[in-house]
């Protein structure tokens, strides 16, 4: 390998020697010839280009140009109460996992720009400092939800079998569907919603299409808690903690500051009982938070005492606590004999006895029904004044896991010809062993209503773009059942 392969050489002699045959030999340069504009950055080229640039700048500037011409385009008819240049606030709500979150959205000339919690909603009930509107919270999910509205990746049109179609095509197909004699092979798979309007529409649809079956699937499901409540009370109820009245809060694998439909309310109530100067428990007092959890969460960060245990060990630890409090048999699991567990559980049991009536147990949705039932028993005994229960709006519905398993079975048995998937992304988030993505191939016609063309849309025959919650009317219920407009 010659040194020229690297493109560098140390002397003229070396260059001469290494030149490949057939090429002109290097000769000492003729100064006139070398000034021939070959080098793109020669002095002459530089001057030429600069001169041209200056001349063009002169042309551009010589026109005595004003600013760029701008237009003012006022609305033909300005909506009532809208003042151009001034923001407006609208009360609305945002639904996540089938629970409404009350919001106030700031809008500028018709465009929403900011999401906040609604301090005047009964479920939010003011700011952290009682009697003020300050810091009425909203969740990170609510804050982020506004970005979907402007996301250029949002789906904008109807899609049929991978090709763009029009909405009237879709309406034509719906019209044909309605003419069918029987709707026994029509199914709906809807995401959970607390909206009474959607429930009413569902009843109307079931009336208009006899035979149609409506399934509900929700990955952010609190079904374990429902099962636990049935074990404890014999019926489906929903526990609502009043953390501003709780001296001791025990979170059993429950990140109630983030992953809870009442997270905003719980966070505020917890904070109200936290500062000794303004505590709702009385001047100079503050609550105490115990977190027994398997993953580091925001609740664990806030906790005064945090016990990290595996998810499946939360039950024996809770059983140990119950046996210390009620004198029942201790669980046989090894974990309760660990020194750190023993120390914490014993101290916790003493504190719970001392604060009887003002203790709250919160259980996360990952935990099995047994833990929820156990916590419900403890709440009845030790949290009588800080936990209340409300009726569930749909006490009879099957669990989400059962519903989607039923649908998968129906598809396998060729009982589904038409499937409407309303919201959600079940191909992505349904239990993997059902293999819903492959099963959708057995459904003759499937429709996916979604904000994005996602994994589910790719496997359905129709994709219909969905309006963002800030683009449409609606309603819903918060965790405590309060009716809320959207």
């Amino acid at each position: 390998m010659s040194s020229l392969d690297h493109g560098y050489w140390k002397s003229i002699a070396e260059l001469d020697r290494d030149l490949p045959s057939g090429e002109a030999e290097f000769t000492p340069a003729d100064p006139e010839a070398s000034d021939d504009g070959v080098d793109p950055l020669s002095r002459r080229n530089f001057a030429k280009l600069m001169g041209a640039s200056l001349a063009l700048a002169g042309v551009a500037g010589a026109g005595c140009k004003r600013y760029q011409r701008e237009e003012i385009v006022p609305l033909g008819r300005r909506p009532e109460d809208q003042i151009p240049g001034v923001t407006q606030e609208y009360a609305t709500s945002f639904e996540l996992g089938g629970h409404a979150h009350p919001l106030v959205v700031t809008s500028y000339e018709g465009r929403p720009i900011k999401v906040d919690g609604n301090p005047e909603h009964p479920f939010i009930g003011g700011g952290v400092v009682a009697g003020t509107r300050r810091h009425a919270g909203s969740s990170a999910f609510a804050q982020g939800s506004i970005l979907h509205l402007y996301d250029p990746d949002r789906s904008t049109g109807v899609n049929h079998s991978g090709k763009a179609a029009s909405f009237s095509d879709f309406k034509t197909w719906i019209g044909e569907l309605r003419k069918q004699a029987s709707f026994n092979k029509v199914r709906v798979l809807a995401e959970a919603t607390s909206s009474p309007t959607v429930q009413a529409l569902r009843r109307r649809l079931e009336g208009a299409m006899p035979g149609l079956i409506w399934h509900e699937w929700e990955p952010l499901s609190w079904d374990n808690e429902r099962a636990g409540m049935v074990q404890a009370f014999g019926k489906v109820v929903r526990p609502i903690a009043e953390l501003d009245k709780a001296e001791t809060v025990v979170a059993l694998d429950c990140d109630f500051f983030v992953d809870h439909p009442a997270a905003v309310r719980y966070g505020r109530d917890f904070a109200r009982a936290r500062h000794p100067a303004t505590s709702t428990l009385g001047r100079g007092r503050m609550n105490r938070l115990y977190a027994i959890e398997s993953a580091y969460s925001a609740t664990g960060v806030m906790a005064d005492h945090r016990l990290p245990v595996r998810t499946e060990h939360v039950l024996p630890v809770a059983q140990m606590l119950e046996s210390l409090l009620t004198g029942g048999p201790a669980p046989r699991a090894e974990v309760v004999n660990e020194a750190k567990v023993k120390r914490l559980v014993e101290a916790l049991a003493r504190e719970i006895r001392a604060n009887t009536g003002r203790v709250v147990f919160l259980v996360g949705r990952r935990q099995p029904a047994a833990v929820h039932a156990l916590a419900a028993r403890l709440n009845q005994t030790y949290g009588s004044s800080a936990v209340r229960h409300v009726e569930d709006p749909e006490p009879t519905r099957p669990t989400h896991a059962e519903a989607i398993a039923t649908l998968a079975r129906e598809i396998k048995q060729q009982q589904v010809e038409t499937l409407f998937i309303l919201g959600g992304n079940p191909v992505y988030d349904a239990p993997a062993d059902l293999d819903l993505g492959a099963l959708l191939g057995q459904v003759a016609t499937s429709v996916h209503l979604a904000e994005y063309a996602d994994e589910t849309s790719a496997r359905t025959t129709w994709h219909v773009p969905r309006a963002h919650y800030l683009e449409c009317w609606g309603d819903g219920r918060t965790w405590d059942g309060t009716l809320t407009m959207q």
Partner: protein
Amino acid sequence: MARFLFPEWTQPLKKYVITPALLVGPVYIVLMAALVKDPQTLRVGYMPEQPVPYSHALHAGEMGLDCRYCHNVVEQSAKAAVPPAATCMNCHQTVLPRSEKLLPVRQAFFENEPLRWVRVTDLPDYVFFNHSAHVTRGVGCETCHGRVDRMVRVWQAQPLTMQWCLDCHRNPEPNLREPANVTVMGYQPAAGEGAAVKARLKINPPTDCSTCHR
């Protein structure tokens, strides 16, 4: 260096043309930059063609409409806001309802085909001006916009330079009047009126950068 030898006859050129040009040229360029590029030259008097030949001289001058009949949000908003076509149609449903010139207004009102007015008073995008802050504190419309009641087609009356803004922010009294009279054209403030308004409304115009460049 043979290439830089010039013929004999070019010598007078060198003496009478090139040398004076080199001496006078920079002065000329600086003068042109200062005079031609000056906002007084460039912008004052800018009078673009508008989509509708709306005459402020007729409406605000001859007929005496208050500025705030159309620019009705000026006291609440940063923007004076060009009115929606619906405001025009309040009268023009009955006045000149078939006028050819008003066709774009009717299109805006009935067919939602908005009017595209050309901005005359155009501040740079890095300047934030708030109409309500000025109008409610007694800075008259005519102070910045000139005698709009005499303009058939609106033109820019003031240079709108930073110097011009700051002159008033440093010494607002000559341009202050009773806020009730902000829309009066050709207003002559009484002696001491500016000082009285300034004291009563506690007007202390800020001059720090972030007031306007925010």
